[in-house]
């Protein structure tokens, strides 16, 4: 899957995977491919900088531990210095929060600790790809669901939905990521703001309560995605 073409390419959804472990890299690329995303692959920081500057990738998946003089963060810093603006998901074996901060400061946009589940990887890559300008609308709407951010009320059609403050925050997060599969970790981080691996899936109870309130008022909008997480989307 290695491809170092000298022709500059602009691709809407082509990714660059920078990972020196060949087998993991193959798995990442396969997972992305299954998700409908094509990817190039390199194994060193230097090659990464080279390719990222010549081609315009939609996003990068970058391992921190790379062989040679230039490790992942150094490569990232260099890329940013040279004007690469594509969002970057950093992979690392280091989970310490200061390591994460360093990664984000070097120009990363998100951070995943190994070992990770591939559903988590693809969900976060999706989030990076769909990241647009933050919506400054006063109203968020999907199908017949409306969230009025000023009055902090939610309605489906003309029926008001009674939400607790945390349910409101949760729904707002889901609507802002409408159509994207969101993992439990992403939802938790997005709504509560902490970062940790909740092995007990407490979030399911929150989602279950919210789903009941939202789905019951009309056509189901919040769905569970098996082995991945949840999604809020308009019916087809």
């Amino acid at each position: 899957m290695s491809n170092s073409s000298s022709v500059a390419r602009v691709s809407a959804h082509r990714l660059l995977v920078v990972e020196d472990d060949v087998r993991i890299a193959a798995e990442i690329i396969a997972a992305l491919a299954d998700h409908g995303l094509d990817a190039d692959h390199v194994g060193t920081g230097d090659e990464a900088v080279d390719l990222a500057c010549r081609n315009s990738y939609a996003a990068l998946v970058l391992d921190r531990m790379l062989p040679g003089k230039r490790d992942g963060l150094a490569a990232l810093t260099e890329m940013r210095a040279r004007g690469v603006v594509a969002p970057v998901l950093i992979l690392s074996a280091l989970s310490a929060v200061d390591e994460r901060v360093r990664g984000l400061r070097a120009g990363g946009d998100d951070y995943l600790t190994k070992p990770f589940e591939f559903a988590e990887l693809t969900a976060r890559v999706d989030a990076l790809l769909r990241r647009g300008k933050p919506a400054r609308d006063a109203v968020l709407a999907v199908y017949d669901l409306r969230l009025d951010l000023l009055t902090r009320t939610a309605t489906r059609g003309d029926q008001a939905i009674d939400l607790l403050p945390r349910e409101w925050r949760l729904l707002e997060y889901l609507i802002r990521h409408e159509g994207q599969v969101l993992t439990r970790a992403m939802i938790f981080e997005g709504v509560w703001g902490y970062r940790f691996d909740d092995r007990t899936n407490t979030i399911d109870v929150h989602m279950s309560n919210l789903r009941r309130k939202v789905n019951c008022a009309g056509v189901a909008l919040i769905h569970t995605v098996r082995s991945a997480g949840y999604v809020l989307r308009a019916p087809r």
Partner: protein
Amino acid sequence: MGLFGTGSMVVFGAIYVETATYLKRQSEIWLRREMAGRVLSSPAERIEHLNARSQTDFGEQRPFVLFAADGRLLAGRMATRPQPPVFDAPFIFRTITSSGHPITYRTLAHRLDGGQMLVVAQDVDEADDFSKLIVHAVLMGGAFMLVLGLGGAIVLGRSTARHIDAMRLAIERIVTGHLSERLPIGGGHSDLERLARVVNTMLDELERMVGEVKSVCDNIAHDMRSPLARLLAGLERAQRRDGDRVAMRDSIETAVAETKQILRIFAALLRISEIEDGVRRAGFERVDLATIAADAFDYHQPAAEARGIRLDCDAPGRLLVEGDSDLLFEALTNLLDNAIKFAGERGRVMLSIAAGPVIRVADDGPGIPAHEREAVLRRFERGEASRNHPGSGLGLPLVAAIARLHGLTVEIGDGMPGCAVTLRPGGPEQSVRKRASRPQFWRSSLHRSG
């Protein structure tokens, strides 16, 4: 001893020098005084005095002599006539006594009107005798001290050498694996003894930690054995039934689930290790524990409600602490999870935060079974009832690791009823331990089911 000896020598030397100088000065003062007296008297008196003196001065130790201008002896007694290098200032004059013994005088000479020379002298040895006395005393004392010192040093040294040898043997035994050995101490207070005591304390801690690690490794191996076994069984089943698509899919799903569980255990282990290493201390900031508690309460409230449990939170408006908000939240989550899990139907769980900081999570469930209470308080033993609960394996060790990182200790108390886990300031985190040794792995317990 050498130091003391040298010091003493220096002191004695100083005393000697001072004494000798003093005596010399006194001698000179006496010479001048006598000279002044002789000069002032009339010539007749003078001669009479000098002659009278020479009658009584048998040893010729303090001769007063008068010489004529031409060198003839006029009064007093002196074998030879001195040739003063200078008048009216003391000088040393060597001559012999009448009996022929050599003698050295401290001499003062004065020229009288008419050319006569008046001489006043004192035997140098007279003053010297005292100095010699001191030197002898010093030498004797020095010799005595030397003997005593050497003797003492040999005795002391031998005893220290024996002590050090004993320690060395003990250390060798410890290093080869007999962790329960300790350095021998005699109950004294020498530096060596104090050091031995400190080392023994360190060994206590080391032994305990190694014990913990062994116990945790055993437990973890046990925790992972089942998922791994299930994983293998499922995959092998898939192999056997490879024609059956439904069974295959089923097996794969099971395999994925079990593997995720195993990965979670590993991830938790790695995190505990990282936390224990203090690596995450670098991420410390001033955080509001009250907010974190409120968020944790908010997060767990639905789950509690779903089980009919009442969750309460008692926290001040604001409580700033130095810490890692992610870790603190995680610790609270673990404690609340456990409490909710074990509180039983329609129970109560209370999360309280107070300045200190003191964090307390209490439930009024069945509590800790009597036969496990002591074990739980002493050492986070794994209780029987927890064996089949998923994911509860590394919860408390993680909480303990996070607590330690924040300078807190974990106490498991009997709530009477129920169980209360309290985190409060304290623990060896305060001491020297930085990148010390290995992790404080504590095995989780909390198994109280009736």
